[in-house]
Each structure stands twice: as structure tokens, then as C-alpha cells.
């Protein structure tokens, strides 16, 4: 209770503070709320800052104390509740729609028409950047989640080759185990476990099933034997982690693969950013494969800049920001550093490394083939209440609170029902 009150009071103070700073805002200034503070991310954002300053717009970070998106989202909530909107904010998936529903988002449809976003941005992404026929957000990138990251030296040592099916993967992990390497680097935090489970479900049930279960939240699919089998597969793969995995951060798990302590990590392509930062090259130092059985499909999440309903005199700055964000040059420059791929499918892949080129081609193919799916673990499959209920169940299964696949399925259906 005390905690709640301090928080509310802090929010109230933040409201007051944000109110003052927003009122003092210069119309030639872009106020941006984001949590990209790590070295690479900050460098990538600098590209955008420079693009904007060429057009005469200053950049102002809205300060967010504490790392991670949660603090930023709390601050944003406070600002919006006080009616003082930033020009734009980094947002994810259903959050954009939540705010759009609350009627606080701006309208960029005119700019979108002029720049042809409708054609270049994949339809699956438009589901989150277009609300009620109006463009309310500018997607910055597309991360895909169904990747395997493998240390090549370890792979050569154990004599493995690319796994094509889930059973191949298990066989490969067995080989690593025999050779005395940690087969699977996993961080035992609920979102990491659920991110891996996204890939497992897609691999076990195929694209149709994934969409039905995790995008449409179809009860039949959630209750099905295929879902049960997915949990069985999760149980199988979790046996290959080291005993110390619980609570480990994702980048530490990536570091285990980079150093060769572990063979493989199942993680989104932000892991590539870590490999690149460690001066590793795809195909010579590390390998990127699609999670076996998911080739041809892409499970994505995407960072978006949500555009708020700012007063008319600040609109020009917002339009400039949106235009610069979706320009091909920024999309390319930013995503080369971030590890992700551009949010529009017509950006040339010349500057990208092998994994990035593959990612761009995969995204294009998935977009055309209708196999581009929102990741439930990353908040693109369903609203946060449901996504978190899902993460709970997966995590409890991995850590043994839920003991059988049957029970896991029952719990999943119940939890999603509760959160609906």
C-alpha cells in the first residue's frame, strides 16, 4: 500500500514536472520518449537526430529514470494522463492501440499517403501503426524472434550441421552435451522462456496453428493436442540448459554463446547486436538459422514511434520526425547497428551482413506469403494482460510449478480467459 502511494505521489510529481517542461516546449523541437540508452542504440538514434537537425529541428529526450521500457511506459502514462504529450514515444504493439483507443494519438495519414507507407510497410505491422484508418505510429524496425544463434567454433568441434527439424535440434544438443559444452544458453526469465516457446509452437504446429492459437486466441487451438505437444517439446529442450539458468539476463546467455561456453541460444535478432558488438562475423564466428521447422515464417515484434496528438504549432516537427524515421537511409543505417531489419520492405540490403540480408529476404517472403505473425511473448500477439498471463504459464512450466503438459494447457486456457 505504502508503495502504491509513493508511486502515485511520484506520478503526480512527474505530472507536474512534465507539464512544466512540455508547456515550455519549443515548436522547433522534437520531444522523444524512449529507452534506447545502450551504446549501440544511442549511436543508432544519433543518425535520426542528425537527419532532423539538418531540417532545423532540435532533439529533446524526455528523461526517463531507470532503464527498461517499464519506467518509460509509466512516465508516458503519467504525461498522457496530464494531457501533456511528447511529440513521439517509443512504443510496442498493443500499447499503441491502447493509446489510440484513448484518443490521444495524432494523425499522420497525409504524410503516410505522400510517402507511400501503405505500400512499403508490411500489412502485419500496419495493424499496429494504423488505428481506425489513421496512421498513428511510425514503425522503426522489425525484429524477428524465431532464430537460433550458434557458436561456429563449437559447432565445428562437435561436428554438427544445420538442424532442419526439431528432432535434429535435439540430436545436435545431445552432441554438445556429450562433448561437455552447455548445449542451450537460456535466461530463466519469463519473457525469454516465452520467446523460445513462440518458436517451439510455430515449429510444432506450423504457421496456421500459430496464428490461430497466438494471434486469434482460438480456444480450440489453445486446448488442442498440438499445444500439448508444444509443451512436451518445451520440456524436452529445457533439459539442455545449465543448472544456473534461472534469472539470467538474455545478454549474459548470448555472451555464453559468444565465448563458446554454450552452443546455441534461441533468441530474437537483438542478440545479433551483441555478436556484432563483440566483433564477431556471421558465418565465420557465428551462425544464424531459423528455428528448425519455422523456415518461411517470421514471428516478429517491432519498435514503433507512437505519434501523439500535439498542438498544431508542433505538428511540423512531428511530421519531420515521422518522415525521417521511415526514410530508407535511416531505416538502413539504424537497423544495421540494431541487429533488426527495416520496417519497410523496399530498403536495399547492401549494408547488411549475411544474417541481416537473410532477415530482410525472410521478412519480404513472409509478408508476401502471409506468414508474418506477431509474437505473443513480445506483446504483438495479444494485449499485455493476456501476453503476461501466457508468460506466467510458460515460466511456471519451465520452473516446475506446473508439472505436466496437460496441466499447462488447462492453465493456459484458464489464464487467457481470465485476462480477456
Amino acid at each position, binding site marked *: *500500500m*505504502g*508503495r*502504491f*502511494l509513493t*508511486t*502515485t*505521489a511520484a506520478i*503526480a510529481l512527474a505530472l507536474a514536472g512534465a507539464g512544466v517542461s512540455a508547456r515550455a516546449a519549443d515548436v522547433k523541437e522534437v520531444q522523444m520518449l524512449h529507452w534506447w540508452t545502450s551504446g549501440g542504440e544511442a549511436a543508432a538514434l544519433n543518425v535520426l537526430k542528425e537527419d532532423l537537425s539538418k531540417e532545423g529541428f532540435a532533439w529533446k529526450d524526455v528523461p526517463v529514470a531507470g532503464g527498461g521500457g*517499464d519506467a518509460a*511506459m*509509466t512516465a508516458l*502514462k503519467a504525461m498522457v*494522463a496530464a494531457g501533456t504529450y511528447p511529440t513521439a514515444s517509443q512504443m510496442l504493439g498493443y*500499447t499503441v492501440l*491502447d*493509446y489510440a483507443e*484513448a484518443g490521444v494519438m495524432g494523425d499522420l495519414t497525409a504524410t503516410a499517403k505522400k510517402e507511400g507507407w501503405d505500400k512499403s510497410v508490411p500489412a502485419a505491422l500496419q495493424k499496429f501503426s494504423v488505428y481506425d484508418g489513421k496512421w498513428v505510429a511510425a514503425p522503426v524496425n522489425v525484429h524477428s524472434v524465431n532464430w537460433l544463434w550458434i557458436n561456429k567454433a563449437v559447432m565445428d568441434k562437435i561436428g554438427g550441421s544445420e538442424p532442419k527439424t526439431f528432432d535434429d535440434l535435439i540430436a545436435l544438443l545431445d552432441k554438445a552435451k556429450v562433448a561437455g559444452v552447455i548445449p542451450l544458453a537460456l535466461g*530463466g*526469465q*519469463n519473457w525469454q522462456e516465452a520467446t523460445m516457446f513462440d518458436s517451439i509452437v510455430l515449429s510444432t504446429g506450423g504457421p496456421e496453428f500459430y496464428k490461430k492459437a497466438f494471434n486469434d486466441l482460438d480456444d480450440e487451438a489453445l486446448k488442442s493436442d498440438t499445444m500439448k505437444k508444444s509443451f512436451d517439446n518445451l520440456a524436452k529442450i529445457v533439459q539442455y540448459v545449465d*543448472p*544456473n*539458468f*534461472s*534469472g539470467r539476463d538474455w545478454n549474459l546467455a548470448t555472451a555464453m554463446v559468444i565465448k563458446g561456453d554454450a552452443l546455441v541460444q534461441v533468441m530474437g535478432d537483438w542478440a545479433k547486436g551483441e555478436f556484432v558488438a563483440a566483433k564477431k562475423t556471421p558465418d565465420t564466428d557465428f551462425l544464424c538459422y531459423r528455428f528448425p521447422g519455422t523456415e518461411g515464417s517470421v514471428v516478429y515484434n517491432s519498435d514503433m514511434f507512437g505519434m501523439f496528438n500535439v498542438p498544431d504549432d508542433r505538428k511540423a516537427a512531428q511530421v519531420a520526425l515521422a518522415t525521417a524515421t521511415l526514410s530508407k537511409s535511416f531505416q538502413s543505417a539504424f537497423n544495421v547497428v540494431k541487429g533488426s531489419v527495416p520496417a519497410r520492405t523496399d530498403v536495399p540490403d547492401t549494408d547488411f551482413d549475411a544474417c541481416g540480408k537473410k532477415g530482410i529476404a525472410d521478412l519480404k517472403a513472409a509478408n508476401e506469403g502471409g506468414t508474418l505473425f506477431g509474437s505473443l511473448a513480445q506483446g504483438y500477439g495479444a*494485449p*499485455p*494482460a493476456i501476453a*503476461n498471463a501466457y508468460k*506466467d504459464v510458460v*515460466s*511456471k512450466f*519451465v*520452473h*516446475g*510449478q*506446473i*508439472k505436466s503438459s496437460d*496441466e499447462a494447457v488447462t*492453465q493456459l486456457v484458464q489464464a487467457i480467459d*481470465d*485476462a480477456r
Partner: protein
Amino acid sequence: MSTVATTDPVLTPGQATRISLRGRLQDALPKIVLAPSFVITLVFVYGFIAWTAYLSFTNSKTFPSYQLTGARAYQRLWRWTFESDPPSSWYTSITNMAIFGFLYVGICLALGLLLAILLDQKIRGEGLLRPIFLYPMALSFIVTGVAWKWFLDPGLGLEQTLHHFGWTSFHFDWIKNKDFVIYTVVIAGVWQASGFVMAMFLAGLRGIDGEIMKAAQIDGASPFQLYRRIVIPLLRPIFLSAFIVLAHMAIKSYDLVVALTSGGPGGSAWLPSNFMYEYTFKRNEMAVGSASAIIMLMTISAIIVPYLYSELKEKAR
């Protein structure tokens, strides 16, 4: 304020106005000075309690909604209270609260008292030892949490170090174990607070009249009897204050759980405060979060109100 003028009927009219002006100011000054903090407390504590209570009966999700929709949030919490297999997050939170609260308060009191009694034996270097035990209290829970997280991590801290020294059979992975992780929170919490409790008890011990002790010693009381029959009963008020301080610290322990375990394997280290924050701000289920906050408030009231009542009654006697 009119009371000032009416209580002094003997004054002449001229004097009355002069004195009553000064008197009124004197009378009002404390009120004027207290008013801002009173209003702030009223709004930001009691106002928000009322607001939270209201929200818990709505269907608020990401943003507060003011449309009353009944006690659905409480119904969910009620069901979750008994969902023990597999444990729901709320069930885990409240059982953890019971374990943590009981052990944390109990061990802190026992350890604090023991340390205080030992320090009270007129030993050398007391001035040095006292701050050593007291200073963990100066650390924030975040620092305590992170330090203990590293120390208890099997791949990094104690276990790894002992393995390096050759004791390879040593095994201590509570922080990674869903059934034991809450006890690591107890360990870190006790480490931080027991020195503070010691300081409270030490102050109490120093306040005990030496004559009573001497009289008891002349009567042939052993040191054990002395403490059991005389000293500890005399420390009763200190026990009560220490209990209140510890109990509210136990209930608001949020940061310690986050820093030490980041929620624990599968959310197994959650306390109700973690549940409240997660549901209100991260899961966009503000109604459920508010309902859990109200339940926490009612639980605390159930403990504190009888205590305050008995204290006030004692004063009146």
C-alpha cells in the same frame, strides 16, 4: 476561532479587540503552518486510498476508468487465494508474505536482542562494533539486493568461491530454486535490519535502572534468570516499536525482491507488493492491482488497529 473572544468576558472592548487579534493569530498560526502538509496528506494519502478503492470496483485496464462494474476484481483475487496447484501468482504472493513476514520479524527481533545483550556486557571495542552492525541499515534495499544476489549466485558467489578453495561438494542454490528463493529474501532482509533492531534494544537496555539489577543479583538471580525475568519484560515497549517498524518494512518489501531475485523462478519470490505493481503498471489490469492494494491495506489495518487501540487504552488508564 471565536472561542478566543468569548472566553475572556472581563476585558474592556478596546483591549478585547487588540488582544483577540493577537490571540487569534496565535491561535491560528499552528493551523496555518500545518494546513499545507495536512492538505497534502489528506489528498495524497487518504484521497488516493479512496481513489484506489473506487478503481478496484471498476474495469480499469491501462487507464483508470470510472464506470463501476462490481466486485469482479475481488472475485478473481478470492478465487486465486485458493488456487494452490499450480499456485496462482496471488497465492504465491500471500504465502510468501506469511513466510517472509514471520521469519523476518521473528529472526530480526531474536538476533537483534541477542546482539544487544552481548554488546551490553561492557566488552572492549563496543564503539567500533556498534556501527559495524548498524550500518547495513544505511544501505538501500536495492544495494542489499544486488550484493546478496551476487553473493548467493551459485556461478558467481559463495558456491563458486568454495569450489575454488577445493570444497567441490558444497552446494547452495536457494536463489535459483523456486521452493527456497523466498528464504534468500529473508536472509538479505535480516542482514540489513537486525543491526537496527539491536540498536533499539541496546538503547532500551541502557535505560534500565541498574539498582533493580543489583537488587536481583543480591537475591541470587543467575544472569539467565536476570534477563528472562527482569530485563526482557522491561523491554516490552521496545519489542512493540521494533515489531511495528519491522512489520511495515516486511509489507513494503518490493525493491528487495526485485533486486535480489527479479521475481524468482516463475514468479516464485513475489510478495503482494510485487503483485500489485505488476498488475497495475505492467499488465494493465489496474482494477485487479487496486483490489490487491486494498486487501493489503485491510490486512495491515487488522494488525495495526488493535495495536493502536490497546496502546491508546493503556495511555488513558
